């Protein structure tokens, strides 16, 4: 079979026309961090920024994927085009992953106005959050109104992704231990909206009470300007609470029209710039002539990591200032 390699810049046109194959391929290249795609992704960034990006986070098993499935159905009733980026952890041993979020969203698969993409965390330093937000831009270019990112919210990178959404929803569930799990994970304070899922269960009341109590005590209350994170209950099983969730998401989006939104968007851009700088700097530093020797010296304990890093950075700055 003849296979044609389409350069990334040539994918922008068809992707912005909503051609699935082109959108999907650009995402693969962004995810893999292919240098060839950087210019294209840069151009896409400049055109993006229209979609409402919603982060949904919570511990594994809290019902996120099922909830996303139901939420998206509800958004589709309003005629909105929706993309989902579902992130699951990579195995720390093999680097591989089993990405099963789609199983819970199977009702949406044949809807041409829904796009679902699974991603693995990969465990690599810095790169992942960066890539996920590039993926969001590509979906934005493709004309999706709502882009939902599901993450398990453990690990710095994933917390950062959740924070980099316009609206962050933190899901807590009954039956996963009597503590509010999000507290342990340190993600309670990033919530713009709290959801207690699985409210068809009899023990959901307890979770609701615990959560409200903690918020009252000031634990995990986001002090975003003029926005008090509501606590909602949903049951994906009985399809309850989704009207309220959609209303709350809309209300939060509207609240971003003011100075809070300007601030939020500035934070997200600053984060992305920082991530890009980190990636690039690390790449350049690794190309430094003394990187290999310093790595060996650290390994021999002839020097310490901090001193070795200083030596590499110093040499890098000397070389760059002399050009």
């Amino acid at each position, binding site marked *: *079979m*003849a*296979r*044609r*390699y389409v350069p990334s810049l040539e994918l922008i046109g068809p992707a912005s026309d909503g*051609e*699935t*194959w082109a959108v*999907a*391929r650009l*995402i*693969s290249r962004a*995810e*893999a*961090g292919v240098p060839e795609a950087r210019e294209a992704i840069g151009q896409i960034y400049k055109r993006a920024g229209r979609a409402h990006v919603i982060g949904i986070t919570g511990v594994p098993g809290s019902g996120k994927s099922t909830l996303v499935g139901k939420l998206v159905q509800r958004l589709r009733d309003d005629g909105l085009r929706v993309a989902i980026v579902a992130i699951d952890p*990579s*195995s720390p*041993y*093999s*680097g*591989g*992953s*089993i*990405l*099963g979020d*789609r*199983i819970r969203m*199977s009702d949406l*698969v*044949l809807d041409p106005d829904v*796009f*679902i*993409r*699974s991603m*693995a965390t*990969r465990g*690599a330093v810095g790169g992942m959050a960066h890539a996920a937000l590039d993926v969001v831009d590509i979906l934005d270019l493709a004309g999706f109104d709502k882009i939902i990112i599901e993450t398990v919210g453990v690990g710095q990178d994933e917390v950062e992704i959740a924070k980099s959404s316009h609206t962050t929803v933190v899901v807590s569930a009954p039956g996963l231990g009597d503590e509010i799990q999000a507290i342990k994970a340190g993600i309670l304070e990033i919530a713009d909206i709290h959801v207690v899922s699985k409210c068809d269960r009899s023990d959901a009341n307890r979770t609701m009470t615990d959560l409200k109590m903690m918020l009252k005590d000031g634990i995990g209350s986001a002090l975003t300007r003029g926005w008090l994170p509501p606590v909602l209950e949903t049951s994906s099983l009985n399809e309850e609470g989704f009207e309220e969730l959609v209303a709350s998401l809309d209300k939060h989006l509207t609240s971003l029209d003011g100075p809070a939104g300007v601030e939020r968007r500035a934070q997200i851009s600053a984060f992305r710039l920082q991530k890009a700088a980190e990636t690039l700097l690390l790449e350049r530093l690794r190309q430094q002539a003394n990187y290999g020797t310093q790595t060996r010296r650290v390994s021999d304990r002839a020097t310490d990591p901090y001193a070795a890093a200083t030596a590499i950075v110093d040499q890098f700055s000397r070389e760059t200032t002399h050009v």
Partner: protein
Amino acid sequence: MSAPIRVLLAKVGLDGHDRGVKVVARTLRDGGMDVVYTGLHRTPEEVVTAAVQEDVDILGVSLLSGVQMTVFPKIFALLKEKKVDDMIVVAGGVMPDEDVEKLKKMGVAEILLQDTPPQEIIDTLTGLVEARGAR
């Protein structure tokens, strides 16, 4: 540091035998691949739609119900309709030798049947992606 190989594993139709596909999913994960699993009882349309959105290197279909000669032609037609010409399609499960030959002619890159050892599955799929080259 190249990106992991992406594979979508699918069960199509009424076939409820999912032991094999689960073994393969774990095998490939342990071999460092990203595996998207869509669950049981999918239609060819659902499988291909998912595979195209996920832009997987390999679409793997596990079939133990004997319907391979109707499923694979549909899959290839759908891929063509969706303008995808570089996805590698592989099959596994239980099927007779005569069908294996026909499926290969149809474009199924590899057919791995019962008792294929894990390492052979990993090596075969890795080899197919390497032979395809960058995309």
